[in-house]
């Protein structure tokens, strides 16, 4: 039902729904972010720089961004396999496996952290054998390739060290990749693979030349979501990280530390740095996605 002559859209309700969208996003997303920026605006530039570039904070950026990136990359790889299996094959218990994927969404992160710590601590089920294995592996790497601070980079324990952080971030990020990929894989027709095969492609070529380019944009989206989620994660990581200054402190922990000292401005200053960096990274990933869509059309 066209309400006025100036309405140029074929679909009605554009003004109303766009207005609602903007108001809703403004209220739910932008308002709290604006509060962070306003709180920070009260700081002098030198205070801001001091709060956001102290050695401990810089070390935490490296760890937070590095571990989140690694966890998202692993999730992108194995999440793809999980999504593929869940869509393409049918097997008994598939519904249950499918539901399991969502569990990290629903589980309170503190519960996840405590459970993971219990399992990976040196007296836990997995930690009791993985912990010594990891220590000796990193020790051997350190001896074989000196010059790199392997023990510093990779940690010498599983729980209460950097590997624990990576495990927690992987755990919470998995559903993002799987749930983004599933509908896209469902859309991929098996005929595509058959056509590739009849045209003489071997299986490897079918995967790398036909399937992956088609899935790549969705894979990037899943990766970006898992990455962003990992960056902000606090609840599960603090239990398993060990929280050693300059070594296993994640940035959200430093924000909490600042709050505990009633330094609200310092806390929001670090938050603003994280926000801006995450925004830029997500934007870059979006651009990459657009580019890949344009150049990898099958």
């Amino acid at each position, binding site marked *: 039902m066209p309400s006025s002559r100036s309405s140029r859209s074929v679909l009605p309700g554009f003004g109303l729904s766009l207005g609602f969208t903007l108001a809703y996003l403004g209220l739910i997303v932008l308002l709290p972010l604006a509060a962070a920026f306003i709180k920070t605006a009260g700081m002098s530039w030198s205070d801001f720089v001091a709060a956001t570039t102290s050695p401990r904070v810089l070390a935490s950026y490296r760890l937070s961004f590095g571990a989140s990136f690694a966890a998202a990359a692993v999730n992108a790889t194995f999440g793809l396999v999980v999504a593929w299996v869940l869509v393409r094959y049918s097997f008994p218990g598939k519904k249950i496996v499918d539901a399991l994927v969502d569990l990290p969404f629903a589980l309170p992160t503190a519960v996840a952290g405590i459970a993971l710590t219990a399992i990976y601590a040196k*007296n836990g089920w997995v930690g009791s054998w993985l912990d010594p294995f990891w220590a000796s592996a990193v020790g051997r790497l350190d001896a074989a390739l000196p010059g790199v601070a392997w023990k510093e980079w990779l940690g010498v324990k599983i729980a209460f060290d950097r590997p624990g952080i990576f495990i927690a971030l992987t755990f919470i990020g998995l559903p993002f990749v799987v749930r983004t990929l599933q509908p896209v894989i469902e859309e991929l027709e098996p005929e595509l693979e058959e056509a590739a095969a009849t045209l003489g492609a071997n299986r490897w070529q079918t995967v790398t030349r036909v399937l992956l380019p088609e899935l790549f944009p969705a894979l990037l989206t899943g990766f970006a979501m898992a990455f962003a989620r990992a960056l902000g994660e606090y609840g599960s990581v603090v239990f398993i990280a060990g929280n050693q200054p300059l070594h296993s402190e994640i940035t959200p922990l430093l924000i909490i530390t600042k709050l*505990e000292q009633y330094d609200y401005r310092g806390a929001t200053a670090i938050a603003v740095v994280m926000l801006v960096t995450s925004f830029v990274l997500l934007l870059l990933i979006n651009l990459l996605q657009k580019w890949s869509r344009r150049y990898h059309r099958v």
Partner: protein
Amino acid sequence: MTFKSLLSAALVLAVAGSAAAKNIELLNVSYDPTREFYVDYNAAFARHWKAKSGDTVVVKQSHGGSGRQARSVIDGLQADVVTLALAGDVDALHDVAKLIPADWNKRLPQNSAPYTSTIVFVVREGNPKGIRDWDDLVKPGVTVITPNPKTSGGAQWNYLAAWEFARRKYGSDEKAKEFVKALYKNVAVLDSGARGSTTTFVQRGIGDVFLSWENEAFLAQKEFGKAKFPIVAPSVSILAEPSVSVVDKVVKKKGTEAVAKAYLEYLYSDEAQDLAGKHFYRPRSAAAAAKYRGQFLKIELFTIDEKFGGWANAKKVHFADGGTFDQIYAR
């Protein structure tokens, strides 16, 4: 409503033969290890207040890391009273939000700290690493568990106790800093709060020695047995004075000033002091202290006021950004 009018109202009601007395609700915002003590104390105070005024008092409790609890109150949690781990956290209620006057700790006896505690060592069964005193903690191969002093009130007591030990033994603040640096090199996990550290040490089996509140150490023994987690008393430790205060702005608004004040004053009564001793806090009253003397280890205790010039100063020198705690981790 003043205390007198409350009393007369209660009298009128009592005369009228009606059982419907006034119902009052208080919120006590406290820190982690006081939970069990305040459950008992709230029941005792409710009985006391009922007998005195006829009104029923229900005290709700909130527990968590001391600093976080203080921040909740600053951010608007309507606490009638705070009973926190250290004076520094109560100070914040004045410094940050002006909820209480600056001289709040003069309003009740003994710096407004009705019970005290100290920091002791908890070790593994049989004390395999032979931990006896603070200087055993810096030996190579000894793993120490203590929370992060930036986020945990209890951990600040630990830090200062270690500092004072080293200052006495080695003679200067410079040496003390080196000692504390060596000690924190041996710290395997810096949890954000005292309960987290207890879990790390007790449940996860990490660490050879755990720097613990004395009352928490006794609680762990009560639960797991004396042999499993022996307590070692260092030669010197800090007199931890958990402090209490009425939150003036809140009680004035809610009209609960009289009962909130009485709630804290009653902490100094014989009944409450006995409860404190029962829950492994060191009581202030001579009678209760004598009764529970046997259960506490003999440790030479110093106060933060005499050795560190009070909380404000200790915070500035040691725990503020760029303080000694940041310096020992700097490379």
